[in-house]
């Protein structure tokens, strides 16, 4: 197993964990942040796979803006899922 595979494997497992957390957790703010983490890891993976264009886009939109928008939306409603 070379370094490349190892790093991707770790990242993918972390991504899966973050995705499950985002789906299961009752605290919506944490769920939003977990989704941001998924996007961040995806953008790192894109970068590793030599797709810088997609990586930039994913980082700025997925991890940055959509996270902010989601937090604004949570601010308008309630933080805890019932």
């Amino acid at each position, binding site marked *: 197993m070379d370094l490349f595979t190892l790093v991707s494997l770790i990242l993918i497992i972390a991504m899966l964990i973050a995705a499950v957390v985002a789906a299961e957790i009752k605290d919506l703010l944490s769920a939003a942040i977990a989704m941001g983490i998924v996007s961040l890891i995806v953008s790192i993976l894109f970068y590793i796979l030599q797709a810088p*264009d*997609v*990586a930039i*886009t994913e980082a700025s*939109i997925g991890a*940055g803006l959509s996270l902010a928008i989601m937090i*604004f939306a949570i601010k308008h409603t309630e933080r805890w899922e019932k």
Partner: protein
Amino acid sequence: MKRILGGVIAVLIFIVLALAFVHIPFGNIDLAEYHYYNPVDNEHTQDSVPQHYLDEGKKETGSTNIVTAVVVDYRGFDTLGEVTVLFLASTGVGSIMYIFEKEKRRKVRRANAVVETASKLLFGFIILFGAYIFVHGHLTPGGGFPGGAVIASSFLLLYLAYPRFHAEHKNLNIAESLAGLTFVGVGILGLFLAGYFLYNFLPFGLPTYLFSAGVIPVIYVAVGVKVGSELTGIVDAMMGVRE
């Protein structure tokens, strides 16, 4: 019970899809066996689409960044569609959030001085960086979408630092309309000049120069402005503090 059922279905879908995705080659594969069929002229050729992009992309579009060549030139119509999708999202959010316009100004807490000053300083630089990304879309990684997102994030910074701040909605609308009109206008111009919608009718120039690759920079600037103003509009609508 419901949760268990849901879990079982999710696992089943995962297994079915995973078995399919196993067949997808990861990384480089031998492309020689592929040939492509052109239904318009009804001819078969020994070539593969990705290999063609890599080999001929620079020559055919004038763009140094092959991703940009594919996104804006080969499949420019898809990009137009995606821009429209973003436009729709912004319009939809605007239409749904319209109800909040009448909401009274709420009591808001000011951010502290460090944040205010730093965002004032950074604001210009971030915009500049965003503009750089989309202006150089045909030369370096990046392009209209990330550039626009970066610009929007600079406005986001202002929203965070100054809770009473809001971008003038009218100006945002004008910017996104003009940018969209530019994109469609370039397309229609291509239709009239060369008979193909979105045809790259400007001279390609020298590769790696800023003014090269024909209409690609024009389109990417339009896309950047459009994405920037739309995302700002969405953030603005979501903030919901307006008179």
